[in-house]
């Protein structure tokens, strides 16, 4: 496979409330930031991720094109998925060999709706959605199936929120406290906060990657898998699709300095840690992760950006990023980011 690297990453200062900006207004500065960072005003391919249901109106991605100022017309596509999957599509497109750069972005304002109820609409409309099971309730089913110690989950939230307070882009959330349940066994602080935000990444292939960044974060492997939808058909305490994606991406082929995991509920961290077989010494979610800022539809892309940032900064040699979609970690994407290209053996394909 062709060497492709993340060469620039930008994100908004995420907020826990609606600041009055439209999605396009929120996105525009982030696009400008990666354009400035790379000096590129046009890209070989552009791909984005967003969700109409967050706004309750069709075509969220159409107004994003206005933020881009897509003129002259651009080669562009959109996934109704987290933008991490848009990055995957762009990585595939760069493998064709005829273009060298791609812009990827994602955005979402979950403050304007009732996210946990909206997510119910993602379930099978005939057999599951009519039960009224909301996102927190089905996550609680998974947390119960896992049955982890409360002190372990509290520590995950405490660490994530402390790291988030040190991250200027994440929310400032206090240390977890309180004994009440949101939906047992989940406490309110186990749940990723409602967040508005956007993020953008620039991918570059071959020589262009070295020209645009001193330490490009090379995509050593990237893969994703989905598993059955019905919760009753899965062992909710495990994530075989994350494990398969991690194997295909080659996570276990070397040490992992940093892992950014798309953990929307505290109990998902041990599930993912086990599925990805991450070493004990791997630093998990140093950005604070989604438990400190969760701009839905950009959250997974931000994991790729935050993991890449550790390599772009020269601090890490090998990092892992994870993104998820669907109820109870139904679909998982895993990427390995490396400080050196793996062209000799070719990136693992997916």
């Amino acid at each position: 496979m062709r060497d492709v690297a993340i060469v620039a990453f930008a994100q908004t200062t995420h907020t826990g409330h609606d600041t009055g900006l439209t999605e396009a207004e929120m996105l525009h500065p982030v696009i400008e930031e990666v354009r400035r960072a790379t000096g590129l005003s046009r890209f070989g391919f552009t791909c984005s991720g967003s969700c109409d249901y967050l706004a309750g109106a069709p075509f969220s991605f159409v107004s994003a094109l206005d933020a881009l100022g897509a003129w002259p017309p651009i080669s562009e596509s959109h996934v109704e998925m987290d933008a991490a999957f848009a990055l995957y599509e762009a990585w595939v497109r760069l493998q064709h060999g005829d273009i060298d750069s791609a812009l990827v972005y994602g955005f979402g304002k979950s403050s304007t709706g009732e996210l946990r109820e909206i997510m119910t609409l993602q379930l099978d409309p005939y057999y599951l959605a009519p039960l009224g099971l909301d996102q927190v309730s089905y996550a609680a089913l998974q947390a119960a199936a896992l049955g982890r110690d409360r002190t372990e989950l509290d520590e995950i939230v405490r660490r994530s929120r402390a790291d988030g307070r040190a991250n200027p882009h994440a929310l400032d959330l206090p240390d977890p406290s309180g004994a009440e349940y949101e939906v047992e066994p989940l406490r309110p602080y186990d749940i990723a906060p409602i967040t508005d935000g956007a993020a953008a990444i620039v991918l570059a292939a071959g020589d262009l990657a070295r020209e645009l960044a001193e330490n490009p974060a090379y995509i050593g492997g990237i893969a994703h898998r989905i598993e059955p939808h019905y919760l009753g058909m899965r062992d909710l305490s495990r994530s075989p699709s994350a494990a398969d994606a991690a194997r295909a991406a080659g996570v276990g082929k070397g040490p992992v300095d940093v892992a950014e995991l798309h953990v929307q509920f505290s109990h998902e961290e041990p599930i993912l840690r086990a599925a990805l077989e991450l070493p004990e010494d791997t630093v998990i979610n140093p950005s604070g992760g989604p438990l400190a800022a969760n701009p839905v539809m950009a959250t997974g892309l931000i994991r790729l950006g935050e993991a890449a940032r550790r390599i772009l900064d020269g601090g890490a040699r090998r990092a892992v990023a994870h993104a998820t979609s669907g109820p109870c970690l139904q679909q998982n994407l895993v990427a390995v980011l490396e400080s050196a290209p793996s062209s000799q053996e070719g990136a693992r394909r997916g």
Partner: protein
Amino acid sequence: MGERCAVIGVGQTRYTTKRTDVSIAGLVREAAIRALDDAGLTFADIDAVVVGKAPDLFEGVMMPEAYLADALGAAGKPMMRVHTAGSVGGSTALVGASLIQGGVHDRVLVVAFEKQSESNATWALSTHLPFGASLVVGAGGYFAPHIREYMRRSGAPDHIGALVAVKDRRNALKNPYAHLRIPGIDRAMVESTPMLWEPIRYLETCPSSDGACAIVLASEKAVTGTPAWIHGAAMRSEPLTRAGRETVSPQAGKDCAADVYRQAGVTDPRRDIDVAEVYVPFSWYEPMWLENLGFAPENEGWKLTEAGCTALDGDIPWNASGGVLSSNPIGASGLIRFAEAALQVRGMAGEHQVEGAATALGHAYGGGAQFFAMWIVSNRKP
């Protein structure tokens, strides 16, 4: 373009107003199994699944690919969901093809659908405050002014739209999957129907359909059966609200066509392409796209339509299947164009087969005529 890629299977459902006998999952599975049967394969032979559809508000299911994973045999595999407005069916085919052209997979199942009977299309397509001024006019009301501007510029006579409506519906009578079947349709019948959005009459618009379309794509080494080889693939998008945007013949459409023609070595589309499946949801978009796609000089597309050049027995048949005017499960409509183009060059289009078709264009557009997806397929290996 990367690795060679071919369509080796096509599956469609019979398009109709309401499929009350199947769930959404049942609908997509029906198309998928027909495409796999056509390729002589099963779900086990598929590496990845790509799903496309228009706004989720059509069925009230958010990101339905999660729920459809089981019905499409995707569990344990990569699955993606594409959404690029009306062009999505075409874009979905291109995203699937990209996985093969990029050397990532050998066999990809692409499925697009809409079950419009679950909702109201005009509602599901209308933005509202604070996201945009609510016109509450649906797609027809949005595009009618662009058509009137085309008529003003080109001086096209008023009856051209009715000719397209008649031609496409007559073709639909030869397509077993087509939704609208109107035996005896003629110009007088079209002109007797109510005016919906001047100059678009009732029979000059597309229907709302339930339906799904699926294709199986393969790398060169994984080809089974009869391949339709992809010779060119391109997408282009432009902003909706750019001042001075040419909405009658959008630049993104011209650029997208130029890109696929360059890849496929097409220099004169009317001569080099044998049959075209072009996204024409309102009759007048045939002459408009004839110009945008370079089949006719500016302001002269209507003359090709009037002279019968785009009829099944014309020199450049457009929408031999009956087109979007005859079947319109919105999210699938683009993929149907791409699939019908493949059927033609595989020689498998049945009664609406264009004899000797070797090279075909599949086209889709969406949004405010701002998203374009196209491919060129051929029975010859590139």
